[in-house]
């Protein structure tokens, strides 16, 4: 089977196949093939195989090391599957069988023969394997077996070659999905395991070492259905990128990223009627909404057990709406003076930026990225830590990544990377998207243009004259990053 099992449905079918094969082998060992129990077991196996063949045109079940794979993917083990999967591995290994496979021709009789031959040779390693294989070949059936294989020195998953950019994209969506699962877990009142969030963030930190602009570009993607999850991942990405520029260690970045990823955790406890309200919130509803930082902190608190990671996650939840100078308007409002932590202040900056640049149902359009940044700069020192604001601006440029701009040459472009040099925060790297007459370009014209790099003529290649409203123009900038 060439197609990989990638969805939950395929996982389920794979597990059913493994379970049915195991059951059939065990049943036929003690019952004749004509016995009702055996007939039932073979029928179940036949049904399981047919389901997969109907989807994929064939099937292949492999044993690699201790694991069972159907197609390219390992079948997941849990409390209900471990036992029969282990037993199946044992049964196949005993016969020297490393795989069972079939194509579209496979019939119920083929499956009966497979089970029958296997029952005749319960053990014996390679010799038995050869015997089973030759018997199946004699029948000219659509089913076959392969020999056991050595455990590969590299796992199949990591062997798959992907470019860094693809890996970033895959990691981004995986992070969205993980965030969704974590928040769903919290929503159900189940115990959250911070280690899953941390592992996800560790992967992002590793990738962002070389590819942070790729990740920053991915923050221009906005989801209709999964705002909170996308927003959380965006905040995580911005936080890691900003933290790295502040000089944080990898360990600190992973804790910061975990705090950022979970900063809106409390929203799962806010009634959906409020969080998705299409219209003005009443005072009472606003007050409920304003509780989400403390509700998020409560979720982490209730995990019990103090740890550095738990504290950082609490800080992310609790402080992300606080004002740097403790002024009114920030929340939660506390009786005693409270200075937000460095992580809290940092998350507050990046959270606000991502939120402002997202289009809402109660707001005609998202704030332009450069406008959002300028607005935030005007609040520097009151709402936001001025040092972190400068670092953030330095990181994304005053025309932030994702901003659509008009160049002096008349071309339109999308900002894809900020300049490293603080003198050139207004001269980012851009990707031109139109020619000078405003006609959309493609191919080679999509090459990057570094506006801070002086050319042979001694001049800058172009310069930004204004930022444009991409949404008003119906332009989806995310496609220039995806």
């Amino acid at each position, binding site marked *: 089977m060439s197609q990989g099992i990638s969805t939950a449905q395929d996982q389920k079918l794979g597990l059913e196949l493994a379970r049915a094969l195991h059951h059939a082998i065990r049943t036929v060992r003690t019952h004749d093939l004509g016995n009702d129990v055996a007939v039932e077991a073979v029928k179940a196996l036949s049904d399981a195989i047919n389901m997969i063949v109907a989807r994929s045109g064939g099937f292949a079940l492999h044993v690699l090391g201790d694991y069972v794979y159907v197609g390219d993917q390992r079948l997941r083990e849990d409390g209900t599957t471990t036992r029969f999967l282990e037993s199946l591995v044992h049964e196949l290994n005993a016969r020297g069988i490393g795989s069972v496979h079939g194509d579209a021709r496979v019939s119920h009789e083929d499956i009966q023969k497979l089970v029958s031959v296997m029952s005749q040779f319960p053990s014996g390693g390679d010799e038995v394997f050869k015997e089973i294989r030759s018997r199946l070949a004699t029948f000219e059936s659509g089913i076959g077996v392969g020999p056991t294989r050595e455990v590969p020195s590299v*796992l199949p998953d990591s062997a798959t070659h992907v470019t860094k950019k693809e890996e970033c994209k895959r990691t981004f969506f995986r992070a969205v999905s993980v965030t969704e699962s974590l928040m769903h877990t919290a929503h159900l009142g189940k115990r959250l395991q911070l280690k899953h969030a941390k592992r996800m963030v560790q992967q992002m930190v590793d990738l962002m070492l070389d590819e942070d602009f790729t990740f920053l570009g991915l923050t221009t993607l906005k989801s209709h259905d999964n705002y909170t999850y996308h927003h959380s991942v965006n905040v995580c990405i911005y936080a890691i990128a900003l933290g790295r520029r502040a000089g944080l260690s990898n360990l600190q970045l992973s804790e910061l990223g975990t705090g950022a990823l979970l900063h809106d955790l409390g929203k799962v406890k806010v009634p959906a009627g409020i969080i998705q309200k299409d219209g003005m919130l009443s005072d009472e509803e606003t007050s409920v909404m304003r509780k989400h930082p403390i509700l998020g902190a409560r979720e982490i608190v209730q995990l019990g057990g103090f740890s550095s990671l738990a504290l950082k996650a609490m800080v992310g939840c609790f402080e992300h709406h606080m004002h740097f100078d403790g002024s009114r308007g920030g929340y939660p409002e506390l009786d005693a003076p409270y200075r937000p932590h460095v992580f809290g202040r940092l998350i507050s900056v990046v959270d606000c930026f991502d939120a402002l640049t997202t289009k809402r149902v109660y707001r005609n359009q998202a704030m332009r990225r450069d406008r959002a940044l300028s607005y935030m700069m005007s609040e520097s020192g009151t709402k936001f830590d001025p040092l972190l604001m400068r670092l953030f601006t330095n990181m994304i440029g005053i025309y932030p990544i994702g901003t659509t701009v008009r160049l002096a040459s008349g071309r339109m472009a999308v900002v894809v990377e900020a300049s490293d040099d603080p003198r050139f925060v207004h001269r980012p790297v851009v990707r031109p998207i139109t020619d000078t007459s405003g006609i959309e370009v493609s191919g080679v014209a999509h090459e990057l243009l570094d506006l801070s790099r002086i050319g042979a003529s001694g001049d800058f290649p172009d310069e930004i004259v204004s930022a444009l409203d991409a949404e008003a123009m119906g332009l989806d900038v995310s496609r220039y990053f995806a």
Partner: protein
Amino acid sequence: MPDVIRVASALVKAISAARLYPIDNPTYLNAKSNFDEAMTSVLTLKRQIRFVVGRKTLFYAGEPVLSEEHGESVATYLHRDGIREMTFHQGFTQEEAADLLHLFTHAATAERSQSEDFATLFWDRGFEHVACVAIDDFLDAQGEEDEIPDEFGMNFIPQIDLEVYELEDEQAIERASREMSEKALARLAENDAELFGVSQEEREKLLAELKEEEDPKRMRHDYTRILVEVLLAERDAAEFERLIEVFESHMGTLLAHGNLEDISWLISVLHRLKTERGEVEDEETPLIDRALNWIWQEEQRDILLQKLDRGDLDTLQGLPALVGAIPDDTIRHLCLLLGDIESGRVRRRLIDLLVERCKTSWTALLPILSDSRWYLVRNIVLILGQVGNRVIAPSLHRVVKHSDHRVRKEALIALDKLDPGRAVSDLKDALRDSESRVRVVAAQTLAKRGSEAAGTLLQVVSEKEFAGRSEEETLAIYYALAHAGGNEVYEFFERSTKPRGLFRKGPTEESRAAACRALGKMNDPRALRLAEKLVQDKTGLVRDAAFAAMREARDRADGRSTSESGREAA
């Protein structure tokens, strides 16, 4: 292959040793050294050793190199946490080896919190020459082939975020942002790099602040702070109960680190919540009470005691906060600690603190006066005496008859402080106590009243039984008499210092010497003259006593202390 098997085996032994022994233990050092040696010998020949981690077996090049069927093997342990490969590269140092072994030990503890596992902690360490490939069933279960949905970027986001929602005056915001961006661009045109540049000094300051925040003590405090805010905001009874459990668990963490200051803060928050807010539901009160009494449960109390007795600095520093924070109805528990603390220094410190704390809540101490431990009762009497409130006195009268003389003695002193007038009768009774030290204290205490007490004391010394008292007691009582002073006392000493007459009638030489010595305590010129006369006495004992008395009297006149003069006299 055999050399790789040796590495795997040495790794397992070193991990076991690291888990069992401290890092300076010879068994650990030997195991670690074997591991270093095995690793070095292989890595000089190979660029790397890559172990594939099976459920119970470590594989190298497809062959099993380590298999442990019983107990939790290294492979099982790593496999469970999702580690599927572990590769050691050339350049692997002995420091990295030590760090890795420590990680195996540390991870087992950290995993209990479920916020970390071997894989996350391994990553945190940032090993240069060891790499792991790990899977996470939770992460893997999310599916890896999500495509970018078509609607991204095209739809309104239906969720409210207050950052945006509360920006009411969009025009004003647009204006502010435009002005700011024009200003920024103008300054950039002037090459004002400082506008967005961040100096090294600023960066270091930020990192220093972060370092301070990462101090373990500070982190525990910050966690406590947020925990308190979460609790104060909680209105749901079921959630409140869960939070109280977290509260107690966190107090356990704080106690383990001797952080009584934060525990005190938590206690005071709970107490305020119960007494001041008036919003606590009926079902919440017992929970708060439970948390308030948590530290006095046997297990916690034992930890606190151990820390106090060991003189743990943090615990001692936080003791005043704890004494100040605990509610009145739990003071009793703190006082009971006095019965168990072995360190005299700590006991005295606690007594001093309790004296201040009990000024308004001394009634909490009264039940302890019935405790069977005399030393505890004595300390409570001491505290009550120092609290200095007259209304306490009646409660102490019964302790004056306590079976232990040390308690009786302390009770007399306390009573004298609390209500000197009413103490007199107890003191008079105590002059005939069965215990010498009580009689002496009673006499000394009474003597402070001056000549009005002289009659009572003279009556005691005139009694027949007094002749049988020890030399020390006789001298102490004479001293008390001398302090009381007055004509009668002088005349008594005059009589008492006269030599024995014919037929050896009159005071003994020892008694004469004691009376003579007491003359030095009298603030009376006649006493000095009498002492001068006695310097010529034919009995050496009396002469010496007279000399010491004169010297003391002179020193007192010169403003020198009795002890100094006493030493010289000796």
